[in-house]
Each structure stands twice: as C-alpha cells, then as structure tokens.
C-alpha cells in the first residue's frame, strides 16, 4: 500500500469509517511510519479547526421563516383559486399598453371557444328526439360519452314523454405532426386552460420545436400569457424557456419585465433578468419607464443577485 492510500485511511479513520481489518493495517503502519503519524496529527488539527463551524445549529427564527414561506408555496401549488382579476389589475397598473394584453386575453378566449366548438360540436346543445331512425345515432354517441348537468324540462311522464337537457362530451384522440395547425391549436388551448399543471407542462414541451418557434405568433402570444398568469412556477419556467426561443419583441420584453417585478420565484426573476440582459447585448434597449422598474427592483427585491444585476443594468444605461 502506498503512502497516499494510507493517508486516505487516516482520514477515514478520523471519521470512524474504517473496517476492522483496515484499522489493523493502519495501526501497524503508524507504529513504523513517522511521516504518517505526523500526517495524522496534522489532519486532526485541521478537522478541529474546521469543526468550529460544526457547533452552529439551525436558528429557530430562520426555520420558522422558511416554513412560513414553504406553506405559502404549497398552498399556491394545490390551490385552484382563480387570480385573473388581481393579475389584470396589476397588469393595467404596470404596463403602459394594457390594451395589448386585453386583446391577447380576449383572443385566447375566443380561440378556446373555437377549439371547443370544433371538438365537441356534436354533443353541445344538439337536440335529439327519440323517434324512429334516431335510436342508432344516439346509441353510437352513448358509447364513450360523459353525461353531466342533466336538467328536466318536462319530468311528468303521465303523458308517456319526458324532456330534458344534458351536456355530453367524449374523449377525442389526435395523432399528427406537431406543426399541424390542428395539433398546435389543441396544445395551445391546453397550455392555457388545462387544469392539470403536468398537462400544461407537456403541451409546452411538445411544442418546443424549431418550426413552431419560427412560424407561429399565436403560440408565442399564448406563452406570453402563460409566463405571466400560470399559477404553477414549473409551467411558467418552461413557458419562459420556450418563449425565449422566439424572436425577441415588445410582447416578450413586457412579459419578462412583468416576471422581474412580480414573480414570487427568485429563480424565474433571475432567468427573466438574464434574458433582458442578453437582449440588451443584442441591441434591444430599454426606455426610461422600463429603467425605472429596475430602480424600484433595487429597492424592493430581496434577492441580492437581482439587486446587483439591476444596478449593473442601470449603470450601463447611464
């Protein structure tokens, strides 16, 4: 065994990590080796010095603060509470061109309705009278159909007839190229409206292809909305990543600025900040009102890195 290997054994022995046979080997070696005995003392001294820090326990106040923040984050993880109203309020307070985002929101709503009507047109409000010839059609609908919201118009069966309404939906399976407009439309709708964050995330990831990035402004606008409004930080992060692959424009800039000043996750604020810096390096400059946001960030943001980078941005513009 070489000296270097004995040195490793010395170290492990100080941490109580030697097997009994290794301890014996080391003990025998130490009796005959002055250099390793010195080395052992040396390592003991070093570890004693470093162990000064070992006595530090977790401060209860820090633990309480961390738990408090975590509870908030967990609540937002599973909360289904809508927050579109305060969001719209903060956007209108914050941006100089609120109409732009209202238009984007309205477009997305119409888009959603359109997709819904395309996909579920057979089952939405269709009147079926159970007369000769219609039974087979109803039976075929009934195979995979989910029925809900049944409401009676006439529940009195004394005359032999009843009448009611219900909502019916059925699963639809689509398979096709990711740049197919119909596939893209469904994925865009899903990233905006799907309840399950995993599905929203998968929709975004599925569209992460060069062709979509080059071709589709609708997808970009949807991503801008997701970056600013999705309640799940993971979804916002992925949306921001994909959004950054689109050609930089004013909408993207406003979304990034919104994240820097409003997002609760410091990692996302940092990513947005870095994107703004990269865009600045490519010649996309900020105007005075936008620079004021960084002055405010320096004062208000709790993250030292964000404060520092904001300050650098301001210095570069001065």
């Amino acid at each position, binding site marked *: 065994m070489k000296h270097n290997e004995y040195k490793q054994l010395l170290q492990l022995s100080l941490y109580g990590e030697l097997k009994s046979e290794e301890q014996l080997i080391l003990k025998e070696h130490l009796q005959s080796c002055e250099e390793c005995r010195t080395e052992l003392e040396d390592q003991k001294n070093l570890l004693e010095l470093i162990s000064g820090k070992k006595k530090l326990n977790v401060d209860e106040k820090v633990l309480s603060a961390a738990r408090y923040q975590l509870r908030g984050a*967990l609540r937002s993880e599973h909360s289904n509470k809508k927050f579109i109203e305060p969001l719209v309020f903060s956007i209108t307070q914050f941006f100089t061109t609120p109409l732009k985002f209202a238009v984007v929101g309205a477009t997305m709503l119409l888009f959603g309705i359109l997709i819904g009507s395309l996909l579920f047109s057979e089952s939405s409000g269709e009147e079926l009278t159970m007369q000769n010839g219609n039974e087979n059609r109803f039976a075929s609908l009934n195979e995979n159909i989910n029925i809900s919201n049944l409401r009676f118009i006439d529940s009195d069966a004394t005359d032999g007839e009843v009448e009611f309404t219900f909502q019916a939906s059925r699963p639809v399976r689509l398979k096709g190229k990711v740049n197919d407009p119909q596939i893209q439309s469904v994925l865009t709708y899903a990233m905006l409206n799907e309840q399950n964050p995993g599905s929203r995330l998968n929709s975004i990831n599925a569209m992460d292809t060069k062709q979509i990035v080059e071709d589709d402004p609708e997808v970009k606008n949807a991503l801008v909305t997701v970056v600013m409004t999705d309640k799940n930080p993971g979804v916002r992060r992925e949306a921001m990543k994909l959004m950054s692959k689109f050609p930089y424009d004013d909408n993207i800039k406003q979304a990034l600025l919104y994240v820097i000043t409003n997002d609760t996750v410091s990692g996302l604020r940092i990513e947005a900040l870095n994107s703004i810096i990269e865009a600045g390096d490519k010649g996309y400059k900020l105007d005075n009102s936008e620079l004021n946001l960084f002055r405010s960030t320096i004062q208000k943001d709790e993250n*030292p890195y964000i404060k520092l980078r904001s300050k650098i941005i301001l210095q570069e513009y001065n």
Partner: protein
Amino acid sequence: MQINDTDLIVQAQKGDQNAFEELVYRYDRNVLSITLKFALNEDDAKDLYQEVFIRVYRGLKKFRFQSEFSTWLFRIATNVCLTYKTKSKEHLKVSINQEYDEDGSEFSYKNELVYDGSSPEEISSDSDLGKLVSVAVDSLSPKQRMTFILKHYEGYKIREIAEMLNCKEGTVKKYLFDAIKNLRKKLSPVYA
C-alpha cells in the same frame, strides 16, 4: 403513538396536506441545515429549502418506497443544492463579493475573506477564523463541498452520502479526500 413515515407518505399521496406537513417537519431542520451551509446567503438557503420540498411535494405520488424516504429526500436536497451552485456560477459574471449600497448608487466591496498573511496569533477572534474556514469551504467544487458538508458537519455515513449523490462510495471518498486536501492547502497558514 407517532405515525410512521410510510403511513404519512401514503396519506400524503392521497392528498392529505396535514400528513405532508408532518413529513416536512420531521426532516426540514436537516434540510435547512444543509442549504444554509451550502448557499451563499440565508435568503438563498430558504429558497433552496422551499425548492426541495416543492419537488418532494410534486414527486411524492410517484414515490414507490424503493428507497428510504429520507434517502430520496436528501438526494433531492443535494441535487437542488448542486444545481443552485451551477446556476450561480453561470449567472455570476461579477464577483459575489461585490455589494450594492442600500440606495443602489454606489458599489463597494466586502472584505475579501482570504488569508492576508496574518499569523495564527494575529487572527485573534473566533469569528475571523470562522470566516476563513467558511471561505475555504465555499471555495471547494460543488460536489467536494456537498460531500464535505454532509460528512463533516451533518455526520452522514459515506454509504448514505453515496446514495444521496447517486454515486459509488469510492467516488464519495475521492470527493472527501480532495476536499480535505484543498482545505488543508487553503488553511495551512493558520492551523499549522
């Protein structure tokens, strides 16, 4: 009688928030202890702590009891810390010792906490020594640093650290050996 981890996990997997919180409180002190030693500041440590438990929360439904919950949890914790370190290096294009003034108008520099040639006798207070040790530990590579923190400060066995870092015990020993070699080099003027 205290409910065991397995029962809590099963309840939490069914959506019981209280069970999840109980699980968190069993381990979060250790997680925070690690993130506090690993992060550059307290705020970042709290962010890392939060990130760890959010990942646990999201991943718990897929937890299949193929390892101890604590091993899985600390594996996530070490991954989050190591990722944080990598990101910090990518993002920090200026020295982390640079500091802004409160009004954001002037830059100043913190004391660069490196050995300035003082003799051990001149480094009078424990806090000076503590700072030197902190800087030396902070200067290690992320994996050396994580291994050293888990072994030296948190007292985990090499086998446990290997599980957390998802590597072989020999690799952990190598990280530890290199970490101590580097610490020794940086601190030799004050402990020799």
